[in-house]
């Protein structure tokens, strides 16, 4: 993190220890159980935009986790109750001012919560860690209409492609039909550069193509029940009202693999244990992942202002 170079390493580590202690204190008070799950996994991630580091073990491969999601969901299905984990995750090809190949992820799940209730939970956690922000909520469509002039739910692929080309990016024919990609492009080109001035806000009501593993709403756009917490332009958390229906989850995995094929990536073997866990009866829940280094960064900036 670029903040680290400005502080002494020791001071940075002391702040980290304080932050972890605040996180544990919060969940202790809330009766959320801390768990530890394997870092080395049998299955790679199916998400098309993430890439695992692969470890060779004799004739078999093992994958360094990109998130603890799969392991935590298996625990949830075993009726363990509310849980959280904080630990390292690994993502290949991610290195930059606010990206690290290895970073600390805090992920937790709340039974019976939906994404709205979980946003409040995230606010309380950030406050418990010393953050003093005015949290707002902004919908995906509001930002798109303001900065791109298009509705991300209803505008056609051709319209989205034209707008992207106007921003100076070239698209091939496959990309022009890849709606998830088109929306991401416009977000990066048109929306994201403006978010630094927004303070702390939850981005909500994602287009269904960007649902990942979130449930879809019954509204006219079937928007995804997913949110991101963005503080001073930095994406700090990503949460979902989780899919618990095994058939729906299987469908999400299949779409991931179709996307991978379309983008020239290898499809991944589907994590049967994940589907089996949902079949066993997954409790309704909402879950969120927080990048700990990024949280520390925005908290430090908040203190330094």
């Amino acid at each position, binding site marked *: 993190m670029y903040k680290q170079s400005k502080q002494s390493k020791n001071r940075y580590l002391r702040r980290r220890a304080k932050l972890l202690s605040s996180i544990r204190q919060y969940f202790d008070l809330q009766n959320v159980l801390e768990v530890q799950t394997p870092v080395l996994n049998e299955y790679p991630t199916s998400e098309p935009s993430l890439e695992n580091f692969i470890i060779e073990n004799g004739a078999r491969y093992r994958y360094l986790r990109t998130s603890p999601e799969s392991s935590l969901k298996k625990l949830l299905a075993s009726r363990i109750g509310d849980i959280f984990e904080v630990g390292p995750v690994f993502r290949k090809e991610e290195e*930059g001012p606010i990206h690290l190949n290895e970073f600390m992820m805090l992920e937790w799940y709340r039974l019976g919560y939906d994404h709205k209730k979980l946003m409040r939970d995230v606010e309380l956690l950030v406050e418990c860690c010393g953050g003093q922000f005015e949290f707002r909520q902004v919908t995906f469509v509001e930002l798109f209409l303001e900065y791109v002039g298009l509705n991300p739910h209803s505008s056609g692929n051709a319209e989205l492609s034209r707008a992207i080309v106007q921003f100076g990016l070239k698209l091939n024919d496959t990309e022009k039909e890849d709606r998830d990609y088109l929306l991401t492009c416009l977000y990066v080109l048109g929306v*994201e550069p403006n978010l630094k001035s927004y303070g702390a806000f939850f981005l909500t009501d994602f287009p269904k193509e*960007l649902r990942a593993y979130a449930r879809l709403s019954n509204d006219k756009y079937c928007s995804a029940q997913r949110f991101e917490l963005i503080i001073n332009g930095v994406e700090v958390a*990503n949460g979902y009202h989780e899919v618990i229906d095994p058939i729906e989850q299987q469908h999400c995995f299949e779409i991931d693999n179709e996307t991978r094929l379309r983008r020239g990536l290898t499809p991944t073997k589907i994590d049967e244990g994940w589907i089996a866990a949902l079949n066993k009866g997954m409790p309704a829940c909402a879950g969120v992942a927080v990048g700990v280094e990024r949280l520390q960064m925005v908290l430090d900036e908040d203190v330094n202002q």
Partner: protein
Amino acid sequence: MTTFSTSQFKLGLKILIDGDPYTIVLNDIVKPGKGQAFNRIKVRNLKNGRVIEKTLKSGESIEAADVMEIELQYLYNDSTDWFFMDTTSFEQLSATMASVGDASKWLKGQEMCNVTIWNNVPIAVVPPNFALLEVTETDPGLRGDTASGGTKPALLETGTSVKVPLFIETGDLLKIDTRTGEYVSRSKET
């Protein structure tokens, strides 16, 4: 044709954008939530110094610009072309007025300049940080007035006008900061 993939991007890399040579001054990864990665770069146009921002798909390749920076000695100009020499090979290169740009205000001959060469043609010239130039014309000096802080224009031997303190006289040798175009001091060197 050499190309660089976004994963090879680093500060100072010289690349071609819309036919012009640029140098990378900032390289950032942008990767929203569950989305693909992009590189957001800031690049400086090596011909005119303008900085622009550009977003590329990660993994995309971009053509390299055959650019190098070398030290050349300025010799003379014939008002359309400016001639420079490599002091080891004695090879001469000519630059257009447009590529010499503001450096022309400070060059009188023999200065070692930092010249940016693209496809063997000079496209930018940076003069030494300080130039020693003689005043060819200015209003008579107010002798002893070194404290009032007033200024007046003075014409230098290169034809450039600078603001100087009131005590400066025609024939004085001045030290000028070429980066700001400001008077630094009167020089005793001749």
